[in-house]
């Protein structure tokens, strides 16, 4: 525990990020719950949910940066881990609805009744328990990462081929989840959630709780990634990024290092997805769409690779721009995303974080 925090020594940007997070955990819920609505500093529940969503994206971005920035694996499939964590949480929320669904079936979610199913599929069992759900939120993405990573890393697939594999992985999952027979609600996904742990998702205090949980998860994600990257394992990871073959000749099992870090990253992404779903109120197969995973990479590129805090900042900036653009010019977002990516690669190869570093170097 102590060494976990010791890894923050000398990490000015990271400490600033964590302090801001801490402030937000207190200030945002207070401004929403305590400050009266007509006050200028009041934060609406809508805004709080939006901010909470951004925090989940920031955690997701950090998980992408861990494998891309530090290990050199350009994962174009992290959306799959995020979505799987989200689906696990969604299944729990569906079971929490109980007999309050449209069809009033105490056991089966509405879409199953609609499909004339009589029994709950085996993989839906256990999701009425929160602890089990939390476990699955981490284990399911981890298992996928282990299986894909085990095959890919052992056969020494690297570079573009690896990116294509991860992209294919999320695409295949998207197609699978679109199918009604899969038992995840088909293209409608899972929605109409009511409670979480018995607290109504409509209530402001539950929303505030989710916001706080997201901020804490982001802080945890940052500190744990920082701990990994500062350790000798993190140095070995960087060495893999730069000279993979060389590291083998000094006795490191490159595929194992990749597998563990990739799996840990997948778990963080799953956690982000699980916190995201109750705040946006829906999870559907489009979360698996290849484009989403590419967007995540853009966040990290914008923020600055291999800095962790940069990834978080990039996720916030790009998503803020996205929220703004999709409201003002609904059709322009994809062009905007492309333009951001091109501009950043041309003018800010080290991302926004590079700007700060440059200033520090000048001093």
């Amino acid at each position, binding site marked *: 525990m102590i060494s976990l925090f010791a890894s923050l020594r000398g990490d000015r940007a990271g400490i600033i990020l964590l302090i801001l997070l801490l402030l937000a955990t207190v200030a945002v819920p207070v401004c929403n719950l305590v400050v009266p609505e007509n006050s200028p500093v009041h934060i609406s529940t809508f805004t709080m949910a939006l901010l909470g969503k951004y925090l989940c994206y920031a955690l997701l971005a950090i998980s992408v940066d861990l494998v891309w920035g530090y290990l050199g694996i350009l994962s174009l499939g992290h959306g799959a881990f995020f979505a799987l964590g989200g689906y696990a949480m969604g299944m729990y929320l569906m079971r929490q609805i109980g007999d309050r669904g449209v069809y009033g079936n105490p056991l089966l979610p509405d879409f199953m009744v609609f499909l004339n199913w009589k029994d709950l599929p085996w993989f839906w069992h256990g999701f009425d328990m929160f602890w089990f759900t939390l476990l699955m939120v981490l284990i399911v993405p981890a298992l996928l990462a282990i299986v894909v990573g085990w095959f890919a890393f052992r056969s020494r697939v690297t570079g573009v081929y690896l990116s294509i594999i991860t992209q294919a992985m999320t695409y295949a999952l998207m197609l699978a989840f679109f199918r009604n027979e899969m038992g995840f609600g088909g293209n409608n996904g899972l929605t109409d959630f009511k409670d979480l742990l018995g607290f109504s998702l409509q209530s402001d205090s539950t929303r505030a709780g989710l916001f706080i949980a997201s901020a804490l998860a982001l802080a945890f994600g940052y500190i744990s990634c920082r701990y*990994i990257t500062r*350790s*000798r*394992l993190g*140095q*070995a990871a*960087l*060495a893999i990024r*730069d*000279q993979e*073959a*060389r*590291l*083998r*000749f*000094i*006795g*490191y*099992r*490159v595929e*194992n*290092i990749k597998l*563990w870090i990739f799996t840990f990253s997948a778990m963080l992404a799953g956690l982000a997805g699980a916190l995201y779903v109750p705040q946006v109120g829906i999870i559907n197969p489009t979360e698996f769409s290849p484009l989403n995973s590419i967007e995540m990479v853009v966040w990290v590129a914008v923020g600055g690779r291999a800095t962790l805090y940069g990834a978080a900042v990039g996720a916030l900036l790009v998503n803020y721009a996205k929220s703004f653009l999709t409201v003002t010019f609904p059709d322009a977002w994809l062009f905007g995303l492309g333009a951001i990516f091109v501009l950043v690669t041309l003018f800010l190869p080290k991302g926004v974080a590079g700007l700060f570093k440059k200033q520090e170097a000048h001093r």
Partner: protein
Amino acid sequence: MISSSSLRSLLNREEVFPFLVPDIPPELDLSHGVILYLEGISVSFDGFKAINDLNLYIDDGELRCIIGPNGAGKTTMMDIITGKTRPDIGSAWFGQGINLLKLDEPEIAAKGIGRKFQKPTVFEEHTVHTNLELAMAGDKSVWKTLKAKLSSEQKDSIYEVATLIGLKEQIRTRAGSLSHGQKQWLEIGMLLMQSPKLLLIDEPVAGMTQQEMERTAELLTTLSGQHSVIVVEHDMDFVRSIARKVSVLHQGSILAEGTMDEVQNNQQVVEVYLGE
């Protein structure tokens, strides 16, 4: 029907089934005084025989120089010993009991074979210190590496090696900004940190000044004895200054072996070198 005798053998608790015997290669056994056996090894790349029925034996504690014209297969030979390239046929043993052809690169490194590459390959983004730290002998499993902390002896040994390779001042310097010769030295330093039993050193003095070359020669000679060293080098003066026994590699097999003088007076060797 299982015959009663085979049934008995199945029930025999003394019996250890072959599939239950762990396939862990034994530790290095140097009882015969030979550390490396390469026998009947051939490799071809797209039909071109880079190594052709190569036989080579290295004694424990020996310093062996390998010379040979460009493309003779010297680097390929090192690739085979370190698990990078698999031979088509032949056998490679480390001591009496370790079959190198069954191990992969990290396993071979863990058994005690270290390598310096022809083109110096250090981790450019890392400092000299981190390069040495990463190479340091020890448990390199994921968990141990995550929790690793430098003990004061380990810190000392990193500084010792840095001093020895003349990079003490640059210990916090990014390896990528070192000169070519310094990178060569850093790679030798990484080898020392690994403390292997057998060192394979591919063209150590390329890009070095006369002075640096002399120091390298000195270092390599002090290493032999406790370690076995194989040096591949083109620079004949350098080879002459360190060599006791020289092997000449030509078209993938050993052409001649002996002292530097014997080799240089060998008619075949002269032809190979003059024929270039």
